[in-house]
């Protein structure tokens, strides 16, 4: 660009340092949040995919049971091995065992050494020094480095594996060097695992490698048709794709929030650039007279936007990277969302994403400069020379009429959008409805300002107040600009507060319903030891009632995450005693027909309804069940179904409880706890009171929303910047007017009080509209976005007192901002203002 453009930009940066820095910082903040969230999501997914591949290798197909309690019969594995297309079949048994008190249940994978070498190279063990292949075959387990690091187990030492009442004592024969951080697993020969834990005639899954010249997709389709119900033939890399689907809605939601922060910063650039343009409209006119073409004057303003946006975006990228690293250290890869278990993912920026965010930041800033550039372009040179900037008054009646029509049209479209179904399983229409609601708020601002304050200006008020009222009423454009940042940021913050507190109240209430017992005993994934169960059945056990639950999973659709299968001791006739049912209960037509109660997510994702019959791949076959009702579940986003223990056992299933709900005898609560702890301690099981579980659940809930709070805070800060900047400008633009008032006997204190009052009036308008929009957006988030994205339904609760406190705090901050503006405005000596042509 040429010298003149550069001079003007640097002059601008020099003479309006604070405002320029603030806009740059706002862009940086927006870019940083978006970029950080992107980096974290990407790293977490990549990490997960790597972990999957590390364990799985790359087979052409995986044969597994749909039901987590099911297994693949060896007969079928042998049948497949005989298929001429199949090059190699590696049977795998996977189960969970406990090996040390310091560790949760770890995965035990039994593989066949000879076939595993080709298909699961990463699982290949490194025997201890001096060991031979015979050691592998004669037993002994190989452990991942993390297990060694997190327990006092050592290579060569004995180890005891337990699962329920089964024990296997052997020794650690070596480690698994290819297993990197956070994998808690053991590998042993499949025959030994079968002997000690597994069924002898079945395996968990079989990994299949086809002959090099075969067509895997075709073979899979063809072979799947011949498989018995309950078995599933899928691609190996499905899992990472499924995880990506699993957290997609959550990630999109966060990205939208981050974009909102960027949008708010566009408002700040807009306010700054409008100000910059307004202050210099005479300068631009002079440049026009000297011969700078209209196009170059327009470009100059856009270029100034770019000059703010580009360095801001660069700064934002740096800040975003730092934020991503800090957040993953603090909250883990899912930002507290609970989707990925495991360690801290490595943040690895990619060139395309980095360039994209840089571009987005610069674009946002340029976008903020477009309207000011347009306003400047529209004003005739001669007029600008004579009187400086004049935003056209918009308060005329004809204008109001048009605006009302536009507002009505916008409102209708917001209602229509919020009733639209999800697109690509994402609440895109819901997000659009939110954008429209924000537009309505901004568009309504001048109307409300004019209506509210022009009436007030004719009241018999003291001079200071009257002047402030008049100024706001007569410059609706400036008021709109000043208020818009505040409207957007307050609306979004209020809506998030509404959504989160509705959600929290709902979760709180839901926890009450799903946790009826005072004490819980949980063993993550492994069946409970029979000694404990039999001790509980003794007459001297201090409990009046004990109910067991077994958790498993079921693959209903191979492209989606598994759904939860919960077998419970529950009364078939009265499920409402244990399940938070929503809507009506359906009565099965036949008493012998097994009944399941499905979660809301299952109802929505798979379109299943109460009263209908459902075929499920249960226990290795296709079973027909009756859908008895729908219950609310906030913990399994991808759906779950509950079946009673009696029905499950009638179907031939074996009930092995992993969780127990316990009701102590009256007055014996403390001793019951001691009794239970004594019986479970040596099995490494955890006993929790209902209070502990509640607290933990709510803590996880709060953690998962920590990021949204950070985003809200950023938006509010940006909104306040915007108010301060615009207010300072509008005061500056009228400095002659102020000076004249000063000459007429207004003192500095009165002037600054008038400016502060003006700021307060604008802030009140912004907060009022922001609150109204916030409640509307909160309703959209609660009733549209949440159900569509996460299948979570809940009643809307508006925490008025908290919102009011927020509004008052914002108002106070706005007053401070206006005080700053007033100081700036009244700093110049009156004589100088009056003398200068401005």
């Amino acid at each position: 660009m040429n010298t003149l453009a550069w001079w003007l930009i640097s002059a601008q940066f020099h003479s309006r340092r604070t405002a320029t820095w603030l806009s740059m910082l706002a862009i940086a903040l927006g870019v940083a949040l978006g970029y950080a969230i992107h980096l974290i999501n990407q790293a977490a997914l990549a990490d997960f995919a790597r972990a999957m591949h590390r364990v799985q290798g790359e087979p052409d197909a995986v044969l597994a049971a749909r039901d987590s309690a099911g297994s693949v019969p060896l007969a079928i594995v042998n049948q497949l091995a005989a298929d001429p297309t199949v090059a190699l079949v590696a049977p795998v048994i996977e189960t969970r065992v406990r090996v040390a008190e310091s560790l949760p249940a770890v995965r035990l994978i039994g593989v066949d050494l000879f076939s595993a070498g080709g298909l699961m190279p990463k699982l290949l063990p490194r025997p201890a020094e001096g060991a031979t292949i015979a050691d592998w075959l004669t037993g002994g387990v190989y452990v991942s480095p993390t297990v060694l690091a997190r327990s006092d187990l050592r290579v060569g030492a004995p180890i005891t594996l337990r699962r329920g009442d089964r024990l296997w004592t052997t020794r650690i024969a070596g480690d698994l060097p290819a297993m990197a951080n956070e994998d808690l697993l053991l590998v042993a020969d499949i025959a030994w695992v079968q002997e000690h834990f597994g069924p002898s005639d079945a395996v968990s899954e079989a990994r299949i490698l086809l002959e090099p010249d075969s067509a895997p997709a075709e073979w899979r389709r063809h072979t799947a048709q011949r498989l018995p119900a309950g078995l599933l033939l899928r691609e190996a890399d499905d899992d990472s794709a499924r995880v990506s689907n699993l957290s997609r809605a959550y990630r999109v939601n966060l990205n939208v929030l981050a974009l909102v922060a960027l949008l708010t910063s566009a408002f700040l650039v807009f306010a700054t650039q409008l100000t910059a343009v307004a202050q210099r409209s005479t300068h631009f006119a002079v440049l026009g007279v000297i011969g700078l073409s209209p196009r170059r004057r327009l470009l100059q303003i856009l270029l100034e936007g770019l000059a703010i946006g580009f360095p801001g975006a660069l700064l934002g990228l740096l800040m975003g990277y730092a934020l991503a690293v800090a957040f993953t250290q603090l909250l883990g890869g899912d930002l507290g969302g609970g989707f990925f278990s495991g360690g801290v993912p490595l943040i690895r920026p990619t060139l395309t994403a980095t360039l994209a965010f840089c571009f987005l930041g610069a674009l946002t800033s340029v976008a903020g400069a477009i309207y000011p550039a347009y306003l400047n372009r529209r004003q005739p040179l001669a007029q600008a020379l004579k009187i400086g900037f004049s935003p056209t008054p918009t308060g005329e009646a004809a204008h109001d009429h048009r605006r009302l029509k536009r507002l009505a049209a916008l409102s209708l479209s917001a209602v229509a959008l919020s009733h639209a179904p999800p697109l690509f399983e994402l609440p895109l229409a819901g997000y659009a409805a939110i954008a429209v609601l924000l537009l309505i708020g901004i568009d309504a601002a001048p109307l409300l300002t004019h209506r509210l304050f022009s009436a007030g200006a004719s009241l018999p008020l003291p001079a200071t107040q009257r002047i402030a009222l008049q100024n706001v009423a007569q410059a609706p454009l400036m008021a709109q600009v000043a208020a818009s940042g505040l409207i957007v940021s307050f609306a979004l913050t209020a809506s998030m507060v509404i959504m989160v507190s509705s959600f929290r109240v709902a979760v709180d209430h839901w926890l009450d319903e799903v946790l009826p017992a005072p004490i819980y005993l949980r063993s993550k994934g492994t069946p409970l030891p029979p000694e404990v169960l039999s001790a509980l059945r003794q007459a001297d056990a201090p409990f009046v009632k004990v109910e067991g639950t077994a958790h498993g999973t079921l693959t209903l659709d191979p492209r989606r995450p598994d759904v939860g299968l919960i077998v419970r001791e529950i009364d078939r006739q009265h499920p409402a005693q244990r399940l938070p049912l929503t809507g009506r209960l359906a009565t099965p037509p036949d008493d012998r027909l097994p009944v399941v109660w499905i979660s809301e997510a299952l109802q929505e994702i798979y379109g299943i309804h109460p009263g209908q019959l459902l075929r499920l791949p249960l226990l290795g076959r296709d079973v027909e069940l009756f859908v008895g009702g729908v219950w609310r579940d906030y913990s399994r986003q991808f759906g779950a179904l509950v079946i009673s223990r009696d029905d499950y056992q009638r179907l031939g299933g074996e009930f092995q409880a992993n969780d127990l709900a316990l009701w102590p005898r009256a007055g014996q609560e403390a001793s019951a706890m001691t009794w239970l702890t004594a019986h479970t301690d040596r099995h490494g099981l955890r006993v929790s009171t209902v209070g502990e579980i509640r607290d933990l659940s709510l803590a996880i809930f709060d953690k998962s929303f920590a990021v949204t709070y950070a985003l809200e805070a950023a938006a509010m800060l940006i909104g306040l910047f915007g108010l301060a900047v615009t207010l300072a400008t509008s005061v500056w633009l009228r400095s002659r007017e102020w000076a004249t008032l000063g000459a007429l006997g207004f003192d500095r204190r009165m002037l600054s009080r008038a400016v502060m009052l003006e700021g307060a009036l604008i802030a009140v308008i912004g907060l009022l509209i922001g609150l109204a929009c916030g409640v509307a957006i909160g309703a959209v988030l609660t009733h549209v976005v949440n159900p569509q994205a996460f299948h979570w339904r809940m009643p809307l609760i508006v925490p008025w007192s908290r919102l009011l406190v927020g509004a008052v705090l914002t108002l106070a901050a706005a007053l401070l901002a206006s005080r700053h503006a007033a100081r700036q405005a009244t700093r110049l000596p009156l004589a100088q203002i009056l003398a200068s042509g401005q």
Partner: protein
Amino acid sequence: MLTVCGLTKRHANAHRAVFRSLELAVGAGEVVALVGESGIGKSTFLNCIAGLETADAGQILIGQPEKDIVTLDETARAALRAREIGFVFQAFHILPTLTVGQNIAVPLLLGRAPPATHPARIAELLEQVGLSGFAERWPATLSGGELQRVAIARALVHRPSLILADEPTGNLDPRTADEVMSLLLDQVRRQRAGALVVTHSRHVASRCDRMLTMAGDGLR
């Protein structure tokens, strides 16, 4: 240098024309004073000539080869101003965020002179308006008379063929006004440009080559 034929201007939503069928010719090196009562349309006339406002009828021929600024679009007008016109305002309008030297350089940057020649040209003009050594000063540190000299230097730096000045001495005391006026006349004649100076001062007008009075029925 400047030929105006049959110029008529009526402001948007005003019911009568400001002026009708004005005729004027200004020759090279000639300085013409334009006087007339307040609100009669002098500034409007000047703005039409500079292409800041559009005349409703008539011709305004400027430069070599002659161009009719009335028929040009906004971009072409700006280009014509950059080449052929220097403007001096009553309120100085020196850009406060650029130094004195940078202010004077703006017309040069819009022209075709090689950038290497700019500093010498700026120094030459500063010397001619009696402000040698002011190039690095900020406008806020200059007096009104000094600012108007900077404005004159800025109007002349790119050797335009026509200088338009709207009450150039209106904000100055009589003695400074006299000095600034002498400077303007001096410079215009030296560059053999034509000039049209709007003024309320009979004294200023009397120092020009020719004086025209604007009245309801035209220029006399």
